[in-house]
């Protein structure tokens, strides 16, 4: 009996604590959900931001968009801008605010070849199309004079799960190779014409490490943390660019449209790394919905304002590329366009 009684007590206590938690979340904690890519950066930023508490759940870009559509969070975060279908499902206009930028690097496992192999975008797409099948092929050799590349079949590795990383990568391939654009296209999951799929960055990394002759793609931060070799990619100006945080930031230092929904892959900037993208925070333009208070709307806007200014200092240590000047300026304008009852908040 005693045990049952104490069990009951425990259950009641647990339920009560859950209730109070939920209540406090209602009061002042800002809720966010979305991209897993941005999660490490966000958790660092939000732990330093003192003006309000933030609860961010990294459930994936698609999930974040869905949560925002259902109005269960204050902001979503996505590695790709909303597509037409997603925009249509939103009940009101949504703003895109760039938070940081990230690069996708091409990693490989070619015995005897260290990092720094040169690859052009067109050849990269041809490899992923299954047209270039050997490391020793003339296209790769021409770009790497003086490097002794063994004759070895290329094993193509891609992400098997839908992911923002795949979106950025296929977006780039679509821009640089017309064949890829017509046969495959860009999406977070596509019909891969060749190769093996690994689940998650760790799945791709595991396959590449284990398979001689493999080529794969992961985020820059992941490759750096795991000491993986990566290739220099030829950008629009014909230069081979080593993926670094600086080169990624430079990729976004171009003319950015007022809604910031821009793909910065294959950047015009001659010093920019070509496979880069923003991750965007998503909020409703009109902040007075579902009986939200003006204080809450203001707190949210202030948080995002802090993110694109002071918060950017956290980027480099975590291997994210800080926003470029052009991107910060565009983001400021977008944040200023948010309204409460039709009046600007900031």
């Amino acid at each position, binding site marked *: 009996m005693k045990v049952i009684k104490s069990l009951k007590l425990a259950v009641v206590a647990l339920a009560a604590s859950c209730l109070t938690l939920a209540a406090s979340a209602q009061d002042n904690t800002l809720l966010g959900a979305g991209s897993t890519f941005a999660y490490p950066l966000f958790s660092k930023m939000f732990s330093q931001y003192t003006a309000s508490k933030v609860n961010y759940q990294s459930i994936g870009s*698609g999930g974040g968009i869905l949560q925002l559509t259902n109005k269960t969070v204050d902001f979503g975060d996505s590695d790709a801008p909303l597509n037409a279908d997603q925009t249509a499902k939103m009940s009101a206009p949504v703003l895109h605010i760039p938070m940081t930028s990230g690069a996708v690097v091409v990693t490989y496992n070619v015995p005897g070849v260290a990092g720094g192999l040169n690859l052009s975008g067109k050849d990269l797409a041809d490899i992923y199309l299954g047209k270039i099948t050997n490391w020793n092929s003339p296209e790769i050799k021409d770009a790497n004079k003086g490097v002794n590349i063994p004759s070895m079949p290329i094993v193509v590795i891609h992400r098997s*799960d839908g992911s*923002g990383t795949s979106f950025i990568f296929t977006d780039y391939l679509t821009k640089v190779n017309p064949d890829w654009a017509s046969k495959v*296209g860009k*999406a977070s999951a*596509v*019909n891969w014409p060749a190769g*093996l799929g690994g*689940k998650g960055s760790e799945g791709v990394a*595991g396959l590449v490490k284990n398979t001689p002759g493999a080529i794969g793609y992961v985020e820059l931060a992941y490759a750096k943390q795991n000491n993986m070799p990566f290739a220099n990619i030829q950008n629009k100006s014909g230069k081979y660019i080593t993926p670094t945080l600086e080169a990624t930031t430079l990729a976004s230092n171009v003319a950015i449209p007022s809604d910031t929904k821009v793909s910065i892959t294959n950047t015009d900037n001659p010093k920019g790394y070509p496979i880069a993208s923003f991750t965007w925070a998503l909020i409703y333009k009109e902040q007075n919905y579902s009986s939200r208070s003006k204080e809450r709307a203001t707190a949210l806007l202030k948080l995002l304002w802090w993110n694109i200014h002071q918060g950017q200092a956290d980027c480099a240590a975590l291997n994210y590329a800080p926003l470029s000047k052009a991107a910060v300026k565009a983001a400021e304008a977008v944040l200023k366009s948010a309204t409460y009852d039709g009046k600007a908040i900031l």
Partner: protein
Amino acid sequence: MSILLVLIILGVLATLILESMPSIKALGIGFLWGKIWDPVQNIYGAYPFLVGTLLTSFIALIISIPFSYAIAIYLGEYNPKGWLSDLLKNTIELIAAVPSIIYGFWGLFVLVPIIRTFEMKIGVAPYGIGVFTSSLILAVMIIPYAASLGITLIRMVPSPLKEGAYALGATRYEVIKSVIMPYTRSGLFAGVLLSLGRALGETMAVTMLIGNTSAVADSLNNAIFGPGNTMASVIANEFTEADHTEYLSALIELGLVLFFVTVVINLIGKRIITKFTNN
């Protein structure tokens, strides 16, 4: 309580049908044998995944049956008591308790290099991962289901039956062959069915090892040793980022197909069990 379970199953079925309506309307029955899965152009076909699911499950079953039957007979009849028997039985049950992601990682880092060497020796494309590798891991994962049911059943064979056979001068092998096996046949088969059900739905370990390609294999070698994909792993891989209605609906329809495959296989199994028992 049991009514609640029936309601849950019916509810799952109803939700699956309802949510996959857009895809059923757009693609019709052709969904089942469509060979292309292209979310960008909204073309969806379940055929490669249907084949992948059935292939991995049945290869795993074929690999696992000799082991699970041998274990059941050894621990049920030859060595039913004592520390060795307990140790073996507990170890086998522990196999079922290991999370599937652990099998996935073990497979990726230990089994795959071994399989690659093996594939180079027999002269097929040395991917390492693929249908065969996933089937091997699945076989290990499903052995405990058939084995532990088999152990219990074989131990439950009434002693008078066995003693009668021994009294007639039967050897141990003959007792197993003509008394124990016929007596436990339907139960052993039910165990196999249980493990097949587990193999059909297994997701994580298979996803990590099967290679996740939706292309249809062009030869028998490639179908068995090459990469493939299963319905469960496609759903696990693509569900979170399915970003338009038709896509999401096609994934749910894939779940519906998996549901029906499981039901059909279970029904066939039930028929076989009844037939055995009547004989």
